[in-house]
């Protein structure tokens, strides 16, 4: 009897996991998973701190609307972890504050 997990429930047969790093630590990710899904699987639920209070944030809306899940991937800041697929070797980093000099919506990089 296998444990009840989402992967078992859906009869998933993903390809072999690949590796990404989160703040330098290696974590496994399944092909097809978003950055947020890979981080959740590794037990990580926050990957950003807010600009004013420095509070941790992670997924909130799960569908690309709230921008709470912003994260740095391969040096690019303000990526929505719930939308961006995790690619082999991705360097994912906690985004602190505005992630350097971004003034707000409408501006990127």
């Amino acid at each position, binding site marked *: 009897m296998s444990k*009840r997990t*989402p992967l078992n429930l859906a009869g998933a047969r993903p390809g072999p996991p690949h590796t990404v790093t989160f703040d330098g630590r290696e974590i496994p990710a*399944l092909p097809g998973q978003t950055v947020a899904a890979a981080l959740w699987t590794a037990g990580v639920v926050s990957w950003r701190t807010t600009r004013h209070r420095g509070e941790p944030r992670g997924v909130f*809306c799960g569908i690309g609307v709230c921008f709470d899940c912003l994260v740095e991937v391969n040096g690019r800041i303000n990526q929505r972890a719930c*939308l961006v697929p995790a690619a082999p070797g991705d360097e994912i980093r906690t985004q602190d504050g505005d992630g350097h000099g971004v003034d*707000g*919506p409408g501006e*990127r990089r």
Partner: protein
Amino acid sequence: MSPAPTLAVVGAGPAGLSAALAAALRGVRVTLLDSAAQAGGQFYRQPAEALGARHPKALHHQWRTWERLRDGLAQQVSAGRVQHMTERHVWFVERVGEVPEGRDPGNPDGRGPGGSDRRHFAVHALPGPEQEDSVAVYADAVVLATGGYEKVLPFPGWTLPGVLTAGGAQAMLKGGLVLPGRTAVVAGAGPLLMPVAVGLAAAGAEVAALVEAAGPSHFAGRSAALAAHPDKLAEGVGYLAQLLRHRVPLAARHTVVEAHGKDSVEAVTIAALDPAGRVRPGTERRIACDTLAVGHGMLPHTDLAEGLGCRVDGVNVAVDAEQRTDVPGVWAAGETIGIGGAALSLAEGHIAGRSAAARLRGAAPDPRTWAAAAKSRTRARKFAAALAAVYVPPAHWAEQLRDDTLVCRCEEVPASAVREAVEELGATDARSVKLLTRAGMGWCQGRMCSAAVAGLAGCEERSARRPFARPVPLGVLARATDEQAPEGGPADDEQNPS
């Protein structure tokens, strides 16, 4: 022979799919655009292909309908009648009288038969996931089927990691086959909470409680209206049976008063509500959990319609019986015109697609030909109205807010600042509160706080009139016009957008 008329459908959920299929089957060339990598929308969100799910059905309800939509789309795509553009984040739809010279290699003078202006709309999209460039698709008419997003009213601790929207938990589960944690509380108000609790439990989470603001008396008061929909009631009873089977305790007429934790949620306090919708003192109890999936209903995405100048009533895009907005050539269907669930979206999409197909050929459509869809639309709207009356958030939710509870998550605006704007500075609408406090000025453009701000300001919820549906890179805005899809016409393949 004159080329077939073209229709751009934005959104590939139940509404957009059914509109695209109805139009394609009636001689229209359709371009279906969606920000997601796969069709399905929220209700039929599919696991990422690379996850190799052999039984995605196990995560879903009404799978037969999905098979019909999925197979229909595949057929129309292979017949060349529908082009499905995935990962296209549409940020603006524009009326163009005429395609500018040299912008449309497929149809260089931008004119249709007899020199008429055929291409009336440019649909501007950022190809994802990076969303750094913009491409345009031109079409004679547009169906907006962008659905909605979940609304959450604030409470102390709602910004802690591990607190997320109920639909978001469901979306991550269906799309990524992941759970946010081991022990979840599902809370708020609305018909979405039951399927989410069932979904999380079936996937292996322990659901420590389903906390619903509505109580038995709310249902009793509407029993006649609800009893007119035995199929829907049976669905609800089915969910209840599954909750029992997974031993999910149901706390009806309760609310979450606070989420606790330091770096992420560790517990929630729930309490009973009195008939007026206030927390009953002394009924508080604490439940340990690492996930709180919470929602208080949904709001429609109206930005694209507003950008086109379509009339919006309150928070809903206004349409006529044919699903036409008041802007000629623009139809709208599904939750973008009002929250009502997947069945209603299907019926509305079908009617929009048929009406558009007829009108694009210059014929007045005969509504008798879609009488069945119109009938299910009427029924589904009545049912949605009955549900909306049952599932209302606690009337006095704002009493739970502390001074430092954030109302605007993006700009970190606390309740005290919003209260000051309202009580001392005299703000009576969301716009003044925004100017005084920055609530609603952040990345999400007020989508997450608009309901709370309206509640605190004591005004009606209305759509926020955002310039664009997505944050647009400055470089894209600086370029006066978009790069166009290389082959021009909507039914042609778009490659290498750069």
